[in-house]
């Protein structure tokens, strides 16, 4: 028992380092670093690279990775990414840091080699020394974790509270504008905070590696736990974050103690611990009716007053003028061109490319759901892949095990996802954007480990096979079925956008209080979007399963869902066409790389998807929208020239007459 509590405190301590690192950077920069886990993995992987692959000593490796590389990475990331994010919207902040979290493990694999690591050593010399304290064995690794936690939490707290450096950080938290008016360079403070934060991430990573294994997926789970602590701390309080971290660590250990280690339920319960803590927090807040609308704004009224704004207004009014001055063909030229290309493509392609194209069209339908919930509804949901998974897995169940007609099963899959979406929507509806992102992420992880792992879905790792409808068994025929469904759904989304509901959504997205004063029911709007998006994602997931002719739970991992969102946002979150382009990009591009480039480049697509999402920090509208706008401008210019010529032709004879 005591031994388990000691182990729990170790795990809790690592959570504590992570959650306090997250809170400090959120407080001082307004950015919740979703890439924290990936940074932790990157540094831990570097430590392994130096220590094991290159046989450097523990001290040298630790100093190089923690004291040199980690802060350097933090400073690099600050100048390359984080400094642009301070004034961005929540969505851009979340997506850009998620993009980083997608790209970093791939970069690590490319740099340090793609090898399977079974056991990762910690900071203690091997073999790990075991102390006996009052009859209880404690390993050197555990002692090092305890020391690190005490150093981080206690010394960190003292530094923040009592030193000049700490004072400057707290001043930054209070008001960046006032900090600079006091003569302190806010950039230097920010750089320092990011350097320290990546150091903490690296420390947590190296300490965690012996316990959870050196695998980027496991690190996502580690950070999910840290996120739960951050949510419970309402994004702000370090002491609460630390306490909740320890509680989660001990809870995890006690589950291991009380439940039989052979049971599958033990490992499922362990992965559910972060979500249980979040659930307790949510219920607690529902009962107390506390306001959790996080304002991601940093600082005071002065900081708000000097923020650059109005750019978006200018662009949207320009776009409206552009739209109004165009005819039908010009206005819809982009979608029409892409639709025609999409219709011709199945004829031009064959073999593996055609198979991918079918799946790409089906994936486009899922991406439309992301367009709807995040682009239209403004809700940063990271669990869209879960709904697609529910739809897909149930489509296979109904079609194969219950012998339903397959397209009916697809629809039913969507209808099964619908209430789950409504439930998640209902639970998160009054929360601020960051809470929603955090909670949907942990929800997706929970579903992935608790629900999708059921035997009926995995079928012993084979998955469940699905037959395509008898009228469209070939890839080419089914591509058109998928395209047809895609166009139906796209038209629905476009119509929704133009309807009164769409306008109400627009209002809610730009300002919730403003929408409320207009008499729009914000809650109702969000529930509608949440339900619809879950339904569409479920249908898309079902189509994807039929396109792949098999339902595999591993295709619906949360991490993959993050990549999905990253791709959709970087191509264009507000456009239906972008959803289709994103689907094609996501599936065809990696195949291009594996087919035509050497295997050493295999991580390139993931890195580029991540970089694309990071690029959102600079181009928040996505590439399709950006280029579409340029394309339309060219069309407009030509239209103008033509009409000018016409006018000239009409007016000149009169000119001669007078």
């Amino acid at each position, binding site marked *: 028992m005591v031994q388990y509590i000691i182990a729990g405190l170790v795990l809790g301590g690592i959570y504590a380092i992570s959650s306090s690192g997250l809170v400090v950077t959120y407080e001082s920069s307004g950015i919740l670093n979703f890439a924290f886990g990936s940074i932790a993995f990157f540094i831990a992987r570097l430590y392994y690279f130096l220590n094991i692959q290159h046989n450097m000593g523990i001290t040298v490796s630790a100093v190089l990775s923690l004291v040199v590389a980690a802060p350097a990475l933090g400073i690099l990331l600050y100048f390359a990414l984080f400094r642009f994010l301070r004034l961005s919207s929540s969505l851009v902040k979340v997506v850009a840091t998620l993009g980083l979290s997608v790209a970093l493990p791939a970069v690590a694999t490319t740099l340090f080699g793609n090898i399977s690591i079974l056991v990762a050593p910690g900071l203690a010399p091997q073999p790990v020394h075991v102390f006996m304290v009052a009859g209880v064995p404690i390993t050197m690794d555990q002692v090092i974790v305890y020391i690190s936690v005490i150093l981080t939490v206690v010394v960190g707290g003292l530094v923040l509270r009592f030193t000049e450096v700490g004072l400057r950080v707290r001043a930054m938290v209070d008001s960046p504008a006032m900090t*600079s008016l006091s*003569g302190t360079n806010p950039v230097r403070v920010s750089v320092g905070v990011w350097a320290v934060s990546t150091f903490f991430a690296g420390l947590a990573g190296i300490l965690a590696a012996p316990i959870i294994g050196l695998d980027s997926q496991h690190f996502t789970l580690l950070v999910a736990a840290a996120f739960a602590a951050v949510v419970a701390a309402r994004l702000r309080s370090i002491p609460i974050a630390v306490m909740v971290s320890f509680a989660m660590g001990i809870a995890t250990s006690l589950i291991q103690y009380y439940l039989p280690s052979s049971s599958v339920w033990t490992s499922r319960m362990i992965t559910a611990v972060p979500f249980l803590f979040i659930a307790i927090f949510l219920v607690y807040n529902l009962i107390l009716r506390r306001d959790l609308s996080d304002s991601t704004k940093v600082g005071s009224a002065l900081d708000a007053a*000097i923020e*650059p*704004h*109005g750019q978006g207004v200018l662009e949207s009014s320009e776009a409206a003028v552009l739209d109004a001055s165009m005819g039908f063909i010009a206005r819809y030229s982009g979608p029409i061109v892409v639709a025609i290309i999409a219709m011709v493509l199945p004829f031009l392609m064959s073999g593996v490319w055609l198979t991918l194209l079918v799946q790409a069209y089906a994936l486009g339908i899922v991406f439309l759901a992301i367009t709807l919930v995040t682009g239209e509804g403004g809700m940063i949901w990271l669990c869209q892949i879960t709904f697609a998974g529910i739809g897909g897995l149930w489509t296979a169940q109904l079609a194969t095990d219950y012998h339903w007609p397959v397209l009916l099963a697809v629809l039913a899959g969507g209808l099964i996802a619908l209430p789950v979406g409504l439930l998640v929507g209902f639970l998160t509806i009054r929360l601020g954007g960051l809470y929603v992102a955090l909670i949907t992420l942990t929800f997706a992880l929970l579903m992935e480990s608790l629900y999708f792992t059921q035997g009926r879905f995995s079928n012993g790792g084979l998955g469940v096979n699905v037959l395509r409808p008898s009228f469209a068994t070939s890839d080419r025929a089914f591509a058109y079925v998928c395209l047809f469904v895609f166009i139906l759904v796209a038209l629905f989304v476009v119509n929704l956008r133009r309807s009164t509901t769409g306008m109400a959504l627009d209002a809610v997205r730009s300002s919730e209080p403003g929408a409320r004063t207009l008499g729009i029911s914000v809650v109702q709007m969000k529930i509608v979007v949440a339900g619809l998006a879950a339904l569409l994602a479920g249908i898309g997931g079902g189509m994807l399963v039929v396109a792949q002719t098999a339902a595999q739970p591993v295709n619906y991992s949360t991490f993959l869902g993050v990549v999905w969102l990253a791709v959709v946002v970087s191509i264009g979150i507000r456009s239906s066409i972008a959803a289709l382009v994103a689907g094609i990009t996501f599936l065809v591009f990696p195949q291009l790389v594996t087919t035509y480039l050497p295997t050493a480049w295999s991580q390139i697509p993931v890195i580029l998807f991540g970089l694309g999402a990071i690029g959102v920090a600079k181009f928040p509208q996505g590439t399709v929208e950006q280029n579409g706008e340029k394309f339309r401008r060219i069309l407009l210019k030509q239209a103008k020239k033509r009409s000018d010529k016409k006018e000239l032709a009409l007016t000149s004879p009169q000119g001669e007459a007078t």
Partner: protein
Amino acid sequence: MASLLSVKNLSVSYGPAQAIFDVSLTADAGEVVAILGANGAGKSTLARAISGLVPSSSGSVEFDGADITGKLAHQIRRAGLSYIPEGRGIFPGLSVIENLRMAVAQERRAERGPAIERAIDMFPILGERRHQRAGSLSGGEQQMLALGRVLAVPPKLIIADEMSLGLAPIVTESVFQSLDAARQQGITIVLIEQFVHRALSLADRCVILGRGAVTWSGAAADAGPEVLESYLGAGTELSA
């Protein structure tokens, strides 16, 4: 004699909206210059642009013989130009003493203690409230803290933006007395004020802004009722 502060043809835009058009003004050493104008005339924007908080789109700002156009706020503060922003120029989440420590953080270590003591001597209430959170002070006390922060290490020039906003008349009076004391020390003051007459009684010169441009400027003594009425509108007589 060259002016301590010289703003030439300054323009400022917030995104698509231009707030300041070609504004020029000067402030000589030891002078008090009042900037007056209706709501939305651009007074605060002008002050923020001079102090480096918002970028200017064209024009130049010279301070103490150096070009500070495009310099960042902390660099301008270190050059000796202190801006007390509208609202309260304090860190509401930090304690009074921490506010003062932030104010003197750029000084050499040995000089920080005495500077804080000077500020507390000027405003003894700050000593009594030493460990209280600045945001929980009364409005008057917060302005004392803002002034104390600025005067702990006397700058060359202070831009005071609507310091009397939302204060009781008696507290307003003490704020003006403190500014007058600062002027006695030889500190140049650019005063942005809504209490027109109280501001003019302290000022040597006066600049009136309207819709982001200078509409009138001259000696404070020349800014008679007819000038004020035609440039600021009727009703300004009610203030002070």
